[in-house]
């Protein structure tokens, strides 16, 4: 059940009304029931057994850890839960990735024929999100930094909370968990702010993302027919499509949650204003970055293997280089994991993982030379012009990764990048061919105006809380703004021919 479908709106409104009719103390029970119903209605209902099984495994592990104090026994329980959760994620999402990779290599020697056949699995929706939320919690209980939840139903609500289960944000129990079970009295401001956030999400998704999708699909589905400037336009459109789609779905998820009085963690912070790749990853899919840092990167660096590697590298290459080398090696594993999380295909491993590792490593290695160059050329490194250049550079580098993300395969992405270099066809745009990519002049103008609105609000968000700012205005202005946005979405939301609710790209992950 997509957030932009009519059925979701009906489901949500009914849930909200019943939620506030329930006694405050047991409102969490209603949220659990709603979450189960939502999952059952969102796809193949039998697949609900997967998230339930994941919650059961976590609950059993937590109860075991609670009963025994000995580190060995607690660790054994943790290992079993990690194996069960990561194992099911691996089997369902990545077995075929391994098989296709082996077949690809074998095919070189066997004239294109593979040696193993792939499996057909029904993958439960949101598996990567609920697995990480639950896994992080079990690890925190093991590390004694999160309270063990003794009520299975409460744990199930945390693991299956409907606004977050399909596309995140990835939750952290020690920060977000307890509020699910606290009584939340009706708060007019929270409810109206939630509606406003949802409306902003619908604007991003239905007005912008769905329009961008048309241009992207035209070029990427027929990539052999396009080169040069068309590939760049389609890729920039994809960056905007993905951002408005994913951050729009987060606005809806956070807005829905806010109307229940529950604050979910932010997942985006205007990432395209980032000046470096590292900063970009602190502002794009924030909860995934935090999760990876805390549960993959830190523990990896603290293993005996990395401690030994660090010591050896420092002895051999000196303190600074040795430290860098160890960090880069750990980052390689981290970015491979980030890439694999996005999907079991090399296009994800490269486009959302290894390429970004390469950027960060090169950035670190070239940083001293870059600083020297700036000094030699007497360029002020704090200037706004240089900041703008850094933002454009970062956006460009991120877009190279997006070519891999969106293309059919890593090979197709390489083909597209090779043909994107031939930018001699810029002039073709002046003859109106831009409007042959899926959006006519009027649709294109709506897209540009909407992007300008998004850009302006994003700029404002850097400095102020826009909803609070609007809330301080006189009632007529306030209502005029929100009604204008509502009608803008209703009238200009792209529903297209044979409309079906907008799909959320990250929902399949």
């Amino acid at each position, binding site marked *: 059940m997509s957030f932009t479908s009519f059925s979701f709106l009906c489901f949500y409104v009914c849930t909200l009304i019943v939620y506030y009719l329930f006694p405050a103390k047991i409102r969490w029970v209603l949220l659990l029931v709603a979450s189960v119903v939502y999952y059952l209605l969102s796809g193949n209902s039998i697949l609900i057994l997967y998230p339930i099984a994941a919650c059961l495994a976590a609950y059993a592990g937590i109860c075991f850890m609670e009963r025994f104090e000995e580190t060995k026994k607690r660790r054994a329980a943790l290992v079993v839960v990690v194996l069960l959760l990561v194992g099911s994620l691996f089997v369902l999402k990545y077995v075929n990735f391994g098989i296709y990779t082996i077949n690809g290599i074998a095919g070189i020697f066997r004239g294109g024929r593979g040696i193993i056949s792939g499996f057909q699995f029904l993958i439960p929706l949101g598996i990567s999100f609920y697995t990480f939320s639950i896994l992080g919690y079990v*690890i*925190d209980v093991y*590390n*004694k*930094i999160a309270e063990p939840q003794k009520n299975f139903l409460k744990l199930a609500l945390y693991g299956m909370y409907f606004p977050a289960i399909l596309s995140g944000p990835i939750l952290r129990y020690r920060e977000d968990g307890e509020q699910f079970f606290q009584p939340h009295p009706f708060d007019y401001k929270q409810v109206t702010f939630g509606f406003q956030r949802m409306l902003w999400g619908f604007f991003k998704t239905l007005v912008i993302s769905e329009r961008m999708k048309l241009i992207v699909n035209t070029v990427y589905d027929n990539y052999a027919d396009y080169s040069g400037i068309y590939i760049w336009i389609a890729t920039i459109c994809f960056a905007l499509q993905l951002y408005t789609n994913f951050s729009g779905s987060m606005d809806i998820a956070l807005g829905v949650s806010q109307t229940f009085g529950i604050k979910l963690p932010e997942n985006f912070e205007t990432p395209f204003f980032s000046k470096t790749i590292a900063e970009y990853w602190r502002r794009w899919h924030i909860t995934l970055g935090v999760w990876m*840092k*805390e549960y993959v*990167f*830190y*523990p990896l*660096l*603290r293993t005996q293997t990395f*401690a030994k590697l*660090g010591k050896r590298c420092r002895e051999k290459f000196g303190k*600074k280089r040795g*430290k860098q080398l160890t*960090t880069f090696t750990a980052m390689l594993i981290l970015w491979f994991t980030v890439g694999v999380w996005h999907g079991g295909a090399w296009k994800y491993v490269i486009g959302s993982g290894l390429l970004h590792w390469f950027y960060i490593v090169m950035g670190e290695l070239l940083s001293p030379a870059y600083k020297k160059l700036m000094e030699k050329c007497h360029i002020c490194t704090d200037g706004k012009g240089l900041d703008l250049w850094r933002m454009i550079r970062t956006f460009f580098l991120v877009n190279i990764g997006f070519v891999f993300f969106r293309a059919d395969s890593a090979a197709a992405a390489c083909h597209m990048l090779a043909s994107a270099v031939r930018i001699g066809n810029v002039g073709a745009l002046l003859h109106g061919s831009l409007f042959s990519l899926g959006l006519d002049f009027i649709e294109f103008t709506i897209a540009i105006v909407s992007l300008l609105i998004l850009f302006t609000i994003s700029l404002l968000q850097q400095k102020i809380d826009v909803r609070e700012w609007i809330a301080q205005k006189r009632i007529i202005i306030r209502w005029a703004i929100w009604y204008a946005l509502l009608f803008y979405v209703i009238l200009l939301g792209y529903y297209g021919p044979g409309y079906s609710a907008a799909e959320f790209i990250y929902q399949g992950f």
Partner: protein
Amino acid sequence: MTREAAYEKLNEVFRDVFDDEEIVVNDSTTSSDIEDWDSLEHINLVSAVEQAFGIKFSMGQVVTMKNVGEMVDIILGQVD
């Protein structure tokens, strides 16, 4: 070990890790007070502190300690 002695040793570790002889830390020092103290250096720092004091932080402590004061509390708890 006294708190003062712990700080004396800790200052040396910080100066070595961050390559800055001027660093002086106290109870309220946080990552925002030292320019290069990011998430990467945090792990390097923790490893260096463990080595210098012959102690071991748990993963929970590594991710939840909020300032140097909390770090010293943990160190003194293990050294004594």
